[in-house]
């Protein structure tokens, strides 16, 4: 078996692990680290459910090998909620606006949008729709997701003040 030792910082914690070279980052996160908040839909880069942050930028963890992440920092959906259970403004906004139904795609939307709102704190509707164009949701029809992002961007702006 071809294996390699990698060092990654996952949700703020530095880990050194031995992984099979062929292991996808998504499988490493779910099966190796037991962080099952990251979901796997299509496993070939179409649905966006497995999106995580790699060095702060949204990336599809099914389109990366775990060994490629060596030396990087990874943030998953588990990193969003505060220790006291307070939801991240995006999570709160999704809940308030009924922007999820089955919830399968939600972790991917979260991580895509965390990165997006970092880059563009005050987006318009067109920009929001463009930002989520790489994430598939089969329940909501996206309208409520767009509303939630608008609310989250305002909440984050207030937080920043």
């Amino acid at each position, binding site marked *: 078996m071809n294996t390699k030792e990698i060092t990654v910082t996952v949700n703020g914690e530095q880990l050194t692990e031995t992984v099979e070279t062929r292991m996808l980052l998504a499988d490493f996160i779910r099966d190796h680290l037991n962080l099952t908040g990251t979901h796997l839909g299509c*496993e070939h*880069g179409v649905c966006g459910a497995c999106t995580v942050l790699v060095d702060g930028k*949204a*990336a599809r963890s099914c*389109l*990366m090998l775990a060994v*490629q992440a060596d030396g990087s920092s990874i943030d998953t959906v588990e990193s969003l909620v505060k220790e006291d259970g307070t939801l991240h403004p995006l999570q709160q906004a999704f809940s308030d606006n009924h922007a999820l139904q089955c919830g399968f795609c939600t972790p991917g939307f979260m991580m895509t949008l965390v990165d997006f709102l970092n880059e563009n704190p005050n987006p318009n509707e067109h920009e929001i729709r463009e930002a989520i164009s*790489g994430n598939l949701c089969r329940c909501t029809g996206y309208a409520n997701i767009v509303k939630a992002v608008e609310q989250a961007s305002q909440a984050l702006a207030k937080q920043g003040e």
Partner: protein
Amino acid sequence: MAAARKNLSALQSGQVSQLLLPFLQLGEDTLDAFEKGLSKAIETDLLAMTVKQRDPAAFEYLRPSSLEEALQYLADLGEDAKIMSGGQSLIPVLNMRLSTPKYLIDIGRVEDLFYIREEDGYLVIGALTKHRDVEFSPLVRKLCPLLIEAVRWIGHPQIRLRGTIGGSIAHADPSAELPCVIAALRGEIVIAHADGEETVTPDEFFLTYLLTSLQPDQMIKELRFPILPETAGYEFTEVSRRHSDFALVEIAAVIDLDENNEITLARLAAGGANPVPCVLEDAEEFLIGKEPTDEVLEEASVLGSEQVEPDSDLHGSVEYRRSLVKALTKRALQTALKRAGGTKG
């Protein structure tokens, strides 16, 4: 061969992953080239993948830190090795075991191939430069704005952050944006191997669907785009089922006028129509020296649509693709004209 065809029609009638669409555009004539790989993949894994988790077959992972080291690996390992840059096209292929290399050479950290610079009348971009870096480069904006228009059509932001321009060219998807741009602009592809370098034209490089002239011991080092006059107008546009999907047809256009309102420069290419990017030479030639009236643009777009030889597939017939080439060529020329004369948008 018969088995491959049978499998192909089975796949076409069933639910097919988006990634496989390029393979399914194969006509009877070009199928031969893929018989071995496709039928093997289908028989061994594609049917099974609906029930089992997708993961790549085992490989040895190599991570060179310099171009020299990468080329040495290639020279030593040859056909057993596969290069990976951003992995945004290759990893799906590995996940589905359409490719099962013994060695995977991850060049993602070869730092000497990240650059964008001006050199002897060319905009020169290192192969490992990410789409996102091109999209936001002031130098590209100034010297080759067509490239920025095109890059924005590539995948989604997540893909553009990891995908590289060299990887897109090497993958040679007929509906990819960069092959169309480099063909339209008569750019050059610099190829490196352990014994040196050579420069090839897009015409020499792209052979057919997903197939290039790259030899097993070679890799792309950089892309060179000729710098066009600042007054030239440009446009890149495409039609796909949804934004960011594979293009059904895409058009790259550049046009420049002199003070008498006569066309002095025309660059036109279509992607998604032929197995390789198609330079619309007849239309280009026709446009030179003419005033850009509506009739002239119409005639040029007809000439363009007559030059492509599209295939039918699930998403569009020959006639539909041809009519798209005509409509998009005219639209692209109109936008390019509006931008010509130094009023860059």
